[in-house]
């Protein structure tokens, strides 16, 4: 694959910021075990919002899983 940017020259005082995505996942995020998603949230790998939107897992501020809301999201949403 060809890089989007090559041979970029930067001068003194310039700043360059490089952001890379995380690794790709494997499998359907909606089937990842809710406990594992909650752990990812606790350890800061996944945000609370991403847990809800991408994994269909509702985790509250204290890290506890809302089982009812999670079941609701996973049965209906995103399919």
């Amino acid at each position, binding site marked *: 694959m060809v890089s989007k940017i090559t041979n970029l020259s930067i001068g003194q005082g310039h700043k360059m910021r490089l952001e890379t995505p995380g690794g790709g996942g*494997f499998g359907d995020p909606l089937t990842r075990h809710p406990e594992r998603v909650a752990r990812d949230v*606790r*350890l*800061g*790998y996944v945000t609370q919002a991403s847990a809800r939107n991408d994994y269909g897992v509702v985790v509250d501020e204290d890290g506890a899983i809302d089982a009812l809301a999670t079941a609701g999201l996973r049965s209906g949403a995103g399919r």
Partner: protein
Amino acid sequence: MNPSNILGVDVGGTFTDLLLFDAETKAFRTAKVPSQRGDESAGFMQGIAAVSAGREIGSIVHGTTVGTNSLLERRGHKVGVITTRGFRDVLEMRRRDRRRTWGLWGDFTPIVDRDLRMEVNERTLADGTIRCEVDEAEVRAAATALRERGAEALAVIFINTYANPANEQKALAAARSVWHNEFVSASHQVLPEIREFERSSTTALNSYLQPGVSSYLARLEQALGTLPFEGQFYIVQSNGGVMSTATARRFPVRTALSGPAAGVIAAAAIARQAGYDNAITCDLGGTSFDVSVIANGRASLAAQATIDFGLVIRTPMIEITTIGAGGGSIASVDRGGLLQVGPESAGSVPGPACYGQGNERPTLTDAHVVLGRINAERPIGGKLARLDVEAAKRAILTHAGRPLGIDVLEAAEAIVRVADARMAGAIRLVSIERGHDPTKFVGVPFGGGGALHVSAIVKEIGLQMALVPRFPGVTSALGCVIADLRHDQVQTLNLSLDGLDIEALDRRMVAVGEEVRAVVNAAGAMVSQIDLSFEFDMHYVGQTHTVAVQVPVTLQGGTTGISSAAIRTAFETVYAASFSRLLSGLPVRIVSLRVAATGRRPELDLSVFAPGPEASVEKARLGTRPVRIDGAWCETQIWSRLDLPVGAIVEAPAILEQPDATIYIEPGLRGRVDRLGNLIVERVPQ
């Protein structure tokens, strides 16, 4: 108290070995008691009771596996880390190495979970400039949060602190003001050396071990307080030197290979005094087989070691290769139908099947018992009156013989052969595969079981010969008694050799030198002299790797007398020796300074262990018993090893028994007692 009386205590995974030695009268006593896993201090105290009431002991030197086991079994304490913003994941990213090359899932778990690693705003640049001051209130808030999440020890790890520790020192003080115990440390204290991952890992592991090692030492000191013991108490470090318990509490990470290091130190001394400068030490205990190389009389030191995948400790350590094959290693037939020995071990509790304490799976020791090589009526360790041969046979037949379709004796011989091959493999790894010629080395087998495999070690590897120490079972305890005191300190300098301010460098060398000397001095007065050694890690500009360059200077009258020319000559000599060429014209850099203070202890003349005039061949002859050799029973001469006089020659096959070990000499070899009482196992002269 008698200051010349030194007690060495080696607490291994299976047995606790003790040696009490009086340097003046040359009197000594030894003892071996079972270790108590989880309560190592109990075995420690039982062992002391077996050799002394306590009053006469001048100092106790202890080799411990408490730190090693906490690391290998991941049983350290919960650590909180406060780090520079953006560097939260250094412990997790490591050096982008992987345990397994292929697969979708990583399985590395850092010793500090991500939610216990917090970032604060601060920035120290590589040249030592503070770009962003640390905010103490932010550090206090982070420490409080980590404490609330259950952290029991705290590590402050900012980047580039080897160049300027100011921010880290401030943060350390702020964190201490809100922390609930003494276990707060910072990376510039543990390892002020360049390279973020190694410094982070070493500092975090230090904190991981600190609560456990500290409470273990406190329990020991409390228990020692109940004895009339008034002497000093020391701990063996991974580099084979000894440190005070105060230093051990500050740097518990330096105990990671404490026990095995003591054994290597002793084996090196034994080989040297017997006249051999090149040796391969082989420690066969209950759970593992540890191999190390002594070349030209010196143990090899590595600058860092990986205790387990991703657990890197950067501090000088004796290079030891360990495989999971010991007397307690369990034999089994794997799913592919192959016989395996280890790494799972039955330890001392429940122990081998022949101990009759609940383990019904066969161990290496069971195989030796069934083959008649270990005397079932006189087991070592002294806890059991006799070994249960029938139980050993049952275990071997059930778990090895029947699955392989062979009888119990064939299976027992196969178990020993597999263990021999694994040990030979480990020795090959450290000798032949590193360019050492095994025919120039003598094997020094020790530990409870090493001597049973001495013949196989000589034959399979092609070693010159093997030398079984007079008391193989207490070799590690002997190492505790003879080890020198030692303290190491590293400091990254990042200096160019051209235009070097030599006076400023001298001042730094003097400062570090005096600091390390003070640590050894403070440890107590049992050394004859303190030697300082100065070493630089150096390279050509642009290189990543460094070479260790010892500079021939010493600290006298407030100066080391170092010169740029001396540094350059020393560097070029080492570089040429390693790479067979120089890169003339390229600038040379000094990356780090390493200073070691060694408090020399008087050399122990090992001839005190030699057999006395009362020893005689007649007295040593114990009769015969059938021993299984190459598929047939052979009536074999049994000897009482300690009663053999100097110069005695033992023809094969032979079994030599002594309280702490059994030696087996195979046909084709013979045994000879040297002037120190060591048993030399060599090929029969043609």
